[in-house]
């Protein structure tokens, strides 16, 4: 099962290393990890996507809590979270196919952010599913390069007290 963990940590040097090495050492695979400052500059939020069964997830959560710099670990419920990822696709784009690619970008509400002689760079945000669908379509043109931020997520406002 895939889980999206939202981990609030102290914004201090070395914390990312501690978290990443904990996953590696305890044999948990990270599918993606995104990290950045929160509304409080002394704190960072890590959004970590892991594939783990319930027991492994419980263990990794407990191990995370043992790190002194970790304040909060939430396993976000997929139905109760907002999640987004940003992807940049650099796609082969000979003159005669540009229109099609721009069309696809429009359908996904993506933006063309760079135009080269033989390529277009498309910026897309959305859920992993949407981005996967888009990647699938763009593959037909040849994706020269791809970069993604990894998923970030928050629990929905309706979940707040």
């Amino acid at each position: 099962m895939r889980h999206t963990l939202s981990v609030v940590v102290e914004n201090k040097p070395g914390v990312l290393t501690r978290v990443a090495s904990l996953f590696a050492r305890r044999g948990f695979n990270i599918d993606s990890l995104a990290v950045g400052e929160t509304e409080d500059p002394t704190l960072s939020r890590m959004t970590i996507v892991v594939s783990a069964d319930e027991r492994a997830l419980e263990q990794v959560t407990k191990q995370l809590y043992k790190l002194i710099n970790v304040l909060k670990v939430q396993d976000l419920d997929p139905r109760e979270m907002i999640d987004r990822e940003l992807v940049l696709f650099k796609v082969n784009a000979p003159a005669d196919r540009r229109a099609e690619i721009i069309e696809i970008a429009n359908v996904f509400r993506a933006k063309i952010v760079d135009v080269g002689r033989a390529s277009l760079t498309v910026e897309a945000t959305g859920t992993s599913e949407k981005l996967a669908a888009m990647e699938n379509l763009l593959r037909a043109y040849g994706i020269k390069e791809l970069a993604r931020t990894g998923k970030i997520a928050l629990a929905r406002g309706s979940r707040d007290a």
Partner: protein
Amino acid sequence: MKSTGAQAIVKSLQAEGVEVVFGYPGGVVLPLFDALYDADGIRTILTRHEQGATHAADAYARVSGRVGVVAVTSGPGAANTVTGIANAYMDSVPLVVITGQVATHVLGTDAFQETDITGITIPITKHNYLVDDAADIPEIMAEAFHIASTGRPGPVLIDVPVDMFRAEIAYRFPERISLPGYKPTVKGHVKQIKEAASLVSKARKPLLYIGGGVLASNAAKELKELAELMQLPVVTTLMGKGAFPEDHHLYTGMPGMHGGKFTNYAITETDLLFAIGVRFDDRVTGKLATFATKAKVVHVDIDPAEIGKNRGVDVPIVGDARSVIAGVIERLRKMNAQPRTDAWMRVIDDWRARFPFHYHASETSIMPEYVVERVRELTKDRPTIYCTEVGQNQMWACQYLRIREPRTWASSGGLGTMGFGLPAAIGAQLARPDHLVIDIAGDGSIQMNSQELATAVINKLPVKVVILNNGYLGMVRQWQELFYDRRYSSSTLPQDCPDFVKLAEAYGALGLRATTPAELDDALLRAFEHDGPAVVDVRVEREENVFPMVAPGGSIDEMLGGIPGGPVSEMLDGELLEEVWE
């Protein structure tokens, strides 16, 4: 008040009540050693190796119940502490290790003697720090002691660049510590405690499975009270030794790979495994799928991550052992619960009588088990702390000594570190100058830190090293005999190289040798009576094996060797069993 960073560290140590620092100096840590030079109330013990310093601090902590402190230099000094830190981490021992580091402006440039010791020790410390602002030192020191000694104890490392030692700061010992991400749960959940008490009151074949956590929380008194109140048999792991008196009629031995057959039978047959401060280590459980399968499990631990890690649990209780046990006792008293383990104790007594540890005594050669027995008997009436090395010597010490008091046993459990015993004895002797301190050693292990004999002699620490000299890495040889077709690859050590008597004498310690059973008592007694450190080279039967033994990955009730006895299903007396079940 103005101080340098180094002086601030010393003031913090004084504020924490530290009396002994184990260490070894070098370039970048000199400002700290300079501040230690005339520090009131702190004795600095110069070991002969940083590993020795770390193990000594570790055992000092185990025996005294206080935080062990280590100070070493950067690079090789820091790297030499790694084994010691890993050892303390595995056995949950509170340490504060202060390492010097190259100056901040050259950090990250592979400067002379630069090693990323915080990076290296992330997996083996409870927490670590790299000081990047000397003003933080008082706070970091206070946090380090707090983290090391509370919750599940463990080592904390503080890496201090040399310019941080030298910087001038305003020293104030912080009155409060703010660690928002660190709040160990001490009090157990009331509902869970009630549930545990209810299970204890109903169980017909309960068993207390006790580990180091009970010692860490100083809960031996409460444990004894609980066991006696409900007449519960008690097994203690290698780490739990001393938490319950081993001469008590409820004491049911050490479980696991080289534990008692009767102990492993009791675990296999119990209907309520009441586990406190243990971690279901594989050396205890053997094959997990067949471990205590008839039992409901109550698991008490201050570290939530241990609960359910290896074995599913019926009643998890996160909390401090002492407070939880007290809660369970209170509840049982309220319920007016009565012991109902009479028949179960008779089953256990029967097993204990039929399957004791045993060996074939000899009149001509010294059996290693006999040596441990004689050490036990000759120290029966005097306060003694027993340390061990690792290997067969350690297992025989587990089997044949009788540890009766908390904090009188120091053995490397989770890491199984050869070379632990001698520095451990030194740390233990510093913690308890009035006790006789004995290291039960192997000829292999002792050579891993024998340089610490100098530390013992120079600091007048009269530790006694009893070497079970079998001329082998005996435990390795035993596995090769049993599982590798007797191919003794790299496991033979000439019994007379080094000559341990001369080695002892070279350091100014007393060196003695026993080669026949008739000589043994005299050598041991002379060593114990000697007012300085002593080494007894005991030439033991070379190819004796530690039995009984659970084959690696096997079920714990199916043991090799020892007194013949099949799996527990065949070992139950029909009549007694009926009574237990009725």
